[in-house]
């Protein structure tokens, strides 16, 4: 596997932190199935896109709450510059990188079941998003992509690198877009993998807390 070693590293970080979260906070080993993809659905034959709207219950709130507790005050601290109203309407667990500098200028845009966070770093922009909604490709159209722990995938875009993974039943995306095509952060996947590895701080606004049974 082309990215095997690096996936293993990034995946090990995430798994260690998520598993550790549950272990510490509940004293129960939470071995969530990493393949917690949004619910499958039947593809229509009309030629119009099929939405796989994962029901809210598909979010693994128990694991997410474990992540929240493990993040302790760090998540809220990292999220202190985010628009609180946008955080509060977000009904999925928000993931932030443990990178105070990046988080300090982050902006969040939320549609409730989907959010995206935009942040700047010198010479590049970073986007982090989460959603429970996906569209379904038919099995006759297999995807030519390697998939690692937590369904981690990597793609090189026109202007950067794009990583996706599934955690808590939510599809998360981490992307870097570089101003200069030759920027090493966008030429190879080391930077984006590093960013995935440290995108572990969980934040929940009012909507997510209610859905998780924590009250508003």
């Amino acid at each position, binding site marked *: 596997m082309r990215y095997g070693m690096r996936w293993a*590293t*990034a995946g*090990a*970080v995430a798994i260690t932190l998520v598993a*550790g979260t549950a*272990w510490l906070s509940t004293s129960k080993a939470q071995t969530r199935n990493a393949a917690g*993809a*949004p619910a*499958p659905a039947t593809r229509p034959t009309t*030629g*119009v*896109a099929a*939405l796989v*709207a994962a029901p809210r219950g598909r979010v693994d709130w128990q694991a997410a709450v474990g992540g929240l507790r493990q993040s302790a005050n760090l998540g809220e601290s990292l999220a202190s510059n985010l628009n609180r109203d946008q955080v509060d309407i977000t009904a999925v667990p928000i993931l932030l990188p443990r*990178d105070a*500098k*990046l988080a300090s200028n982050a*902006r969040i*845009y939320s*549609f409730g*079941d989907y959010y*995206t966070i*935009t942040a*700047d770093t*010198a*010479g*590049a922009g970073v*986007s982090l*998003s989460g*959603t429970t*909604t*996906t*569209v379904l*490709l038919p*099995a006759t*159209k*297999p*995807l*030519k*992509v390697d*998939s690692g722990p937590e*369904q981690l*995938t990597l*793609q090189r*875009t026109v*202007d950067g690198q*794009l990583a*996706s993974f599934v955690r808590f039943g939510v*599809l998360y*995306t981490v992307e870097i877009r*570089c*101003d200069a*095509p030759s920027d090493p*952060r966008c030429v190879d996947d*080391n*930077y984006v*993998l*590093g960013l995935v*590895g*440290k995108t572990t701080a969980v934040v929940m606004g009012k909507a997510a807390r209610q859905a998780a049974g924590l009250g508003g």
Partner: protein
Amino acid sequence: MRLSSLFVVAALVLAPLAACDDTTKAPASGVEAPKPPSPEPGSPKADDAPADGGAEQPSSEPVPPSADPAPQPAEPPTASPVTFDHAPAGAIPAGQGPGYLDRTVWSPKMCWPLAEAGFPNSQVYGPGGGMGPPGKPSQCDSLNYTPPWHDTFCEARSRSNPLCAGAGTGHQGQDIRPASCKKNEHWAVAAEAGTITDIGTYTVTLVAKAAPHYTYRYLHMQMSTLAVKEGDQVTVGQKLGKVSNDFGGTPTTIHLHFELRAGVSGTTTDGKAVALHTFLPPYLSLAEAYQRKLDGKACGAP
């Protein structure tokens, strides 16, 4: 005991990643580098020579060998409501990439992303492109501004596209030449109502308000005349900016690179279920949107 064990493990695993901190890899100091503005519109130049041999395909990067073109169905597809001249979805000439045969209209309500007409076709294999026909060196050749449309999703490129057969690389969107071969004149507009979530040095990203919250990316825009800024909530059909040839300091052909992205659930070629954020073929969504425009229907109309 438990705490210390966990942190030891986490520290060991995290250590190799420390080098990935942006503070160590940024090309400049910690001070944000100002983004260079695009040149003012001025008098359009008829034929800027693209320096990238076409678009989005650096000459320094080889294009992996691609699979044969996507086979077309033996039975003719359902009659298309589209009345203008356009080649079928996924039909890419042999040797120019696998294409992607898909008759799904992924975004059935989207607005044609230009205020005027446009010509979806190849920037690489058309006249003036890096691998264009001999004897036709000008990107302003009338062939490029004449129907039929051509699908360019999964045209041969070196960037990732999991939907493309062969090496899993290919063009990630649809290239569209504006109504004329003039940069900084023709408006790109919002394909759906949503929020501008990112402005790059030559890109605009729009996330749709409606589920499944498609991400539309507009590349090669003129940044100095953008009509939107990050955080703006836009209505469908709202002007975003003008189509140019900006490409990170290197001019490309005058065109809009239009991407449609979404969270996608599927199966990998080795049979594993996977969900990822990736590219979808926009060609048929564009065709239907353009037909609605020709029919005089408003953006967003069914």
